[in-house]
């Protein structure tokens, strides 16, 4: 990149601005004019290059690879196969389960990322004194833990033989025997969901608490005089007043549910048993880096992009209509 043009650039412009009487010749005029036009793009260039290299180039590559067959092995080259990858994807039983589970995680994560945090934030917001911050810190704690550590801790807790949860369930007589949470079909995806949710609660609670702190107390006082009670105030004032934040969290939760569950699926269940806890994101990763099937992985990635692109667009439109901004 040639940055040496920049000083000359700044030097050239005042000459035109101050209206120097001498007529510029054609070459001079051309240089000055084109430099002026180019100037903003040169400021943008570093950002555009980084974006292009790390984002748009891989995006285009992924699109291309989805129509090829390739194993990434040294010496091999992508072979064009047309729509074969997509057709195989739609025909695969695992992919169907993955899509269903993705939906499950998205919907079932919403209570953890929106509903429970909203209640917690509201309850702690009306607290007085230091306890408010102590509680908020406790809620936030899971968020700062590394995903792998969280997974390890839960593997201990939910261990079928020595795990605290199984011991307690047995001692209290709720179950007889033990549950192997991560290897039983009925429990695996619920375990993944609860762990992901547990980690998300704190983050959303802090975000909602911040939004609540910014709301004007006098609305609530006026509402008290109008006779509105706690629950009613929550729905009539709290929800609309922090609606931009709520919609933001809903959108985050929907779009990132697959990514947030990824680490736990990979570490705790590997998507099993029999693919019952996998999701589309994990399948994509497996195609690419376990089966070394770049074509399938890229096809899944493209579908993922298309579907979530549509969801994001819809959510943005909806939140524009529903969100209320109190200035």
């Amino acid at each position, binding site marked *: 990149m040639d940055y040496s043009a920049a000083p000359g650039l700044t030097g050239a412009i005042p000459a035109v601005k101050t209206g120097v009487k001498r007529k510029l010749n054609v070459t001079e005029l051309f240089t000055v004019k084109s430099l002026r036009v180019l100037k903003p793009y040169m400021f943008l260039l570093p950002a555009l290059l980084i974006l292009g290299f790390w984002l748009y180039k891989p995006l285009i590559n992924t699109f291309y690879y989805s129509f090829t067959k390739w194993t990434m092995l040294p010496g091999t080259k992508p072979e064009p196969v047309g729509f074969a990858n997509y057709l195989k994807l739609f025909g695969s039983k695992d992919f169907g389960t993955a899509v269903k589970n993705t939906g499950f995680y998205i919907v079932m994560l919403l209570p953890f990322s929106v509903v429970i945090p909203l209640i917690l934030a509201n309850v702690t917001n009306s607290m007085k004194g230091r306890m408010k911050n102590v509680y908020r810190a406790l809620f936030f704690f899971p968020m700062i833990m590394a995903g792998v550590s969280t997974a390890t801790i839960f593997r201990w807790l939910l261990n079928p033989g020595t795990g605290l949860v199984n011991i307690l369930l047995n001692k209290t007589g709720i179950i007889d025997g033990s549950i192997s949470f991560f290897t039983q079909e009925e429990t695996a995806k619920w375990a993944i969901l609860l762990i992901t949710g547990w980690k998300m609660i704190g983050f959303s609670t802090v975000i909602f608490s911040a939004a609540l702190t910014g709301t*004007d107390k006098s609305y609530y*006082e006026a509402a008290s005089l*109008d*006779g509105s009670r706690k629950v009613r105030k929550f729905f009539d004032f709290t929800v609309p*007043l922090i609606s931009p934040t709520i919609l933001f969290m809903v959108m985050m939760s929907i779009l990132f549910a697959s990514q947030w569950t990824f680490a736990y699926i990979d570490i705790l269940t590997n998507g099993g048993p029999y693919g019952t806890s996998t999701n589309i994101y994990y399948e994509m990763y497996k195609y690419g880096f376990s089966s070394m099937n770049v074509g399938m992985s890229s096809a899944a990635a493209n579908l993922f992009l298309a579907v979530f692109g549509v969801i994001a667009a819809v959510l943005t439109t909806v939140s524009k209509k529903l969100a209320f901004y*109190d200035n």
Partner: protein
Amino acid sequence: MSGNIGVHNVVKDFGAAKVLKDISLDIEEGSFTILLGPSGCGKSTLLRIIAGLETPDAGFVTVDGEDITDYEPKDRHIAMVFQNYALYPHMTAFRNVEYGLKIRKIEKSERRRMVNEVLEQVELADQAHKLPAQMSGGQRQRVALARAIVKRPKAFLMDEPLSNLDAKLRTQMRFELIDMYKKLNTTFLYVTHDQVEAMSMGTYIVIMNQGVIMQQGTPREIYEDPRNLFVAQFIGSPPANIIEHENGYIGIRPENITLSDTPDGEFCLPARVHSAEQLGGETIYHLNTSAGKINVKISGCWEQENSEPYAVFNLDKTFLFDSKGNRIPDNDRVLRAVLRGLDGGERLAAFSFQSAG
């Protein structure tokens, strides 16, 4: 419907700060009572205690003799207009006014009739479907009033409702509030730090300072007969001149002093004009006298001024205060003695002057 509000021995502390120190007050039914005082004097806290938004640490509040201290705000039959109006920002003017009725489960058609009637009353019928953010300050103020009126309360509490408006609009709203008060025929309790609002609107004024009531009475009583130095210095524009002497203070209102080229009148002080504020209809002179600075307010403007006039006033227009600042009965003998000292200059050393600032 109109109610009498009683405040009985109310105490309120915020941590170490004693905000209200044993306040007792009777707000007469149908009066336009003003709680007046500098910021931080506890007037807003008292209003919020009456509204039920704060709980007193001791004492109780009554409406028509009924103890309402433990009642929810909504059960007190009181409406409040907030300083920032506290209009629900996501609701239209109509829905703002309607909200309280909806909570009270008043039937929809009746609700609609009541809201429209009140909006008409505040001349906002055409703005009913606008959000607060789309309205001007004056219109928002009216919505806040409408929201209070529609409840048909026994009393209206207003917390500096005009302080967010510009000077011209404030004057206009002052008249509208007086009109509204006359039409509604209900008790108004109005908090302000602006003595002009207090004097022009109130039928009864309660002056507070540092959590205690300094004086209460009609605007005329407050102006003509201040019970202490604080009131004398708080009311009046500019406030009363205060002259400190060995045994206390003397107060003289700037408008009760005239300027003369010759030493005449009941009492006069030789003075030198320091500066003059020409206000159009009247002039405020800042004089240096043998006792210090004195403000004099005279009607008329831009008149040829004598730079060394005499400040002339009558003894019956002066107030006498003891050394603690409490008013003592006017005593001509004491006044004469003190003022002669000022005039003659022999006892001048004993005087100092306190600016009324």
